């Protein structure tokens, strides 16, 4: 114990002196020019990257450089905090990090990432998913590049749609909008709180698809300043369609976000019961919109695991007004090298590995959209891969404005969309939130 106290006191004293004299960002020391034996740290966010891919990266990095690659898994809930604290700190910064694509503009604009324009061609150039490359650019320079993409499409209950008289899925957006309202009114299975299309009131990530599908935008860059465009006629049109669905086809709580909508499309009581107690089904939605990997969570319960049942479930890509896939909000993330990294050469080598044919294919085989369009075929050709590729073909990202991450965190978008869902006056709300949000967009 004595030792421990001594250690604590010593530590305390150290903190005191250190805190007293040094302050702010340490300047990065000159980077090594050789990759030999550089040990680097790579932050991945969430569990999307499968273990096999991680193992490949570690082994391949060691093979190429002799150094050790340490992968640290961060969570989406704390990534902003940790990037904010660690990236300016040369001693504790990750050398390479994944970052949400909507968060990327904020960090690239304050100089958190290293300029990797010189590697752009080498890593894939114009083959890389453009919308993701764009959110990683500032003044024509590349700071972050796409890591993988996901997309959003529909999952629907074939049995429910058929019971309501729909044997074929609608071909245009207008037909779809009308169909989900119709199914809700018919409620063929007589379910309590039934939704033809389950869409959370605060769920702007899925809801914005109707805006994009009608040619609307959330914001535009005008003379170097970002401006919200919620009052744009096309945006208004999309918001009105969305409101109609919210009011007449969705029983989702107005507070629901895009978290786990698949809970409402599964039969949760389908497991066979010994006793003959009346088990009412938990099924409460005919259609949901979710990221592609949600299909792992959809299906019948077999041995406590979800198993996709082709007779019951289907996938469907939201059509636009012209019948082609509607532009939806892309999922996925970007990747970049920290500006304070002391091991730039090693970090660059890691990027080369990540953008190599082998790794891109590993991503694809695991259902993650590869950044390089040459390897998209690795996703396979089952219905999920097809729906993913098709819906992604036209997908969009949020504006690359410096204040976007702050705007997202202010929760004003959730507020705006939930007011629309509550049946508020769309035009008036759009004008109100244009005024509220525009300053946040440009706030650094």
């Amino acid at each position, binding site marked *: 114990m004595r030792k421990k106290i001594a250690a604590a006191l010593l530590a305390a004293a150290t903190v005191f002196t250190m*805190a007293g004299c040094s302050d702010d960002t340490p300047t990065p020391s000159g980077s090594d020019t050789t990759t030999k034996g550089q040990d680097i740290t790579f932050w991945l966010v969430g569990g999307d990257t499968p273990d096999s891919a991680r193992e490949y990266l570690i082994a391949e990095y060691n093979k190429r450089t002799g150094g050790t690659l340490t992968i640290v898994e961060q969570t989406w809930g704390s990534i902003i905090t940790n990037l*904010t604290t660690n990236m300016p700190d040369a001693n504790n910064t990750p050398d390479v990090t994944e970052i949400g694509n909507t968060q990327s503009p904020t960090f690239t604009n*304050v100089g958190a990432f290293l300029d990797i324009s010189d590697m752009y061609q080498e890593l894939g150039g114009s083959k890389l998913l453009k919308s993701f490359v764009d959110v990683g650019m500032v003044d024509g320079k590349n700071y972050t590049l796409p890591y993988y993409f996901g997309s959003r499409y529909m999952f629907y209950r074939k049995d429910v749609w058929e019971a309501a008289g729909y044997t074929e899925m609608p071909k245009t957006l207008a037909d779809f909008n009308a169909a989900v309202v119709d199914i809700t009114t018919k409620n063929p299975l007589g379910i309590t709180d039934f939704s033809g299309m389950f869409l959370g009131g605060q769920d702007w990530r899925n809801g914005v698809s109707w805006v994009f599908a009608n040619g609307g935008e959330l914001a535009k860059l005008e003379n170097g300043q970002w401006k919200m465009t919620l009052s744009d006629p096309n945006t208004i049109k999309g918001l009105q369609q969305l409101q109609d669905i919210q009011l007449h086809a969705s029983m989702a709580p*107005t*507070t629901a976000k895009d978290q786990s909508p698949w809970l409402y499309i599964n039969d949760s009581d389908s497991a066979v019961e010994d006793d003959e107690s009346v088990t009412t089904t938990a099924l409460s939605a005919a259609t949901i919109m979710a990221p592609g990997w949600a299909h792992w969570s959809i299906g019948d319960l077999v041995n406590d695991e979800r198993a996709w049942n082709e007779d019951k479930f289907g996938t469907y890509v939201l059509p636009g007004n012209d019948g082609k896939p509607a532009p939806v909000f892309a999922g996925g993330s970007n990747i970049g090298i920290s500006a304070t990294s002391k091991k730039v050469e090693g970090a660059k080598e890691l990027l080369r590995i990540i953008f190599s044919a082998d790794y891109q294919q590993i991503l694809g085989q695991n259902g993650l959209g590869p950044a390089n369009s040459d390897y998209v075929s690795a996703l396979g050709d089952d219905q999920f891969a097809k729906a993913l590729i098709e819906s992604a073909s036209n997908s969009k990202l949020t504006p690359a404005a410096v204040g976007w991450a*702050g705007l997202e965190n202010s929760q004003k978008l959730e507020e705006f969309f*939930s007011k629309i869902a509550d049946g508020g006056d769309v035009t008036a709300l759009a004008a109100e939130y244009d005024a509220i949000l525009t300053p946040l967009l440009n706030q650094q």
Partner: protein
Amino acid sequence: MSVVTTIDAETGVTAREVNPRKRKIAPYLLIAPAIVMLVVAMGYPLGWQIYTSVHHYGLAQQFGKAAEFVGVDNFTTLFSSSTTWMVVIRSLVFCLVNAGLTLLIGLGAALLMKAVHKAVRLTIQIAMLLAWATPVTAAVTIWIWLFDWHHGVINWVLSHFWPSMVHFNWLGTPLGFYSVATLIVVWMSVPFVAFSIYAGLTQVPDEVMEAAQIDGATAWQRLTKITLPLIRPVLMIVALLQLIWDLRVFTQTRMLQDYQDPLNVDLLGTYIYRMGIGQSDFSMASAFSIFVLLLTIAVSWFYVRELIKEDN
């Protein structure tokens, strides 16, 4: 090492033959470790907070851009925003309701513990210990599960009496959100209050109560005229702590908001967190923190004043 210090200190205090000079230095030596610890851990963060509250300090500054001195601008912006005042008012109401409920229930539970048979008292005590010992992260998770709109047991029970409650989304409206938050906070805080007050009650001499009974005092009179005044010191401290803790409640509401957020339900702590970590507006977060400190002092002024008086 520590023990030696303690004993030296003790001798310094108690032995009569200690010389006056040593007596003068002794208290400073005794408080030194605590002070060093506080300065070490709080000094720099506190300085940083004051610094950022009068500068423009956002994400760009965090990444090395020079911070511009703006005087009281941050405070002016903060207090000209109606959101800020709404947060302050909501937090004060939340704090008073929670502290009030906690004290009332805690007092009730303590009186009950005093009045019942030993076995029943032990049952109450164990139940309260369980609630007290449950870590806050676990506690919030349990309550979210109990109140889950789709599968939660509370809606299941309520729907038998009121069918419309079958899928009621508790966390969907501010009122429902605060009700759940209040339940969690009260559930977690009552045990400490109940144990402290019960401890105080056991010190009230039985003879006094018996005498009052013989004099014909009713139970209510005995409670208000004898018991409560006698345990006033405990009540004061417990009330003060509840006010401070409930005003700065953070973990519970943040975890609830992470799960489901009816929007605009920020209290002081989550508001600071949103401005700072969320929106990278560290100046605003710091300025508001300083204001919250002053607000807390104001709320607990009744005690602070007494503390100052008592020392004179």
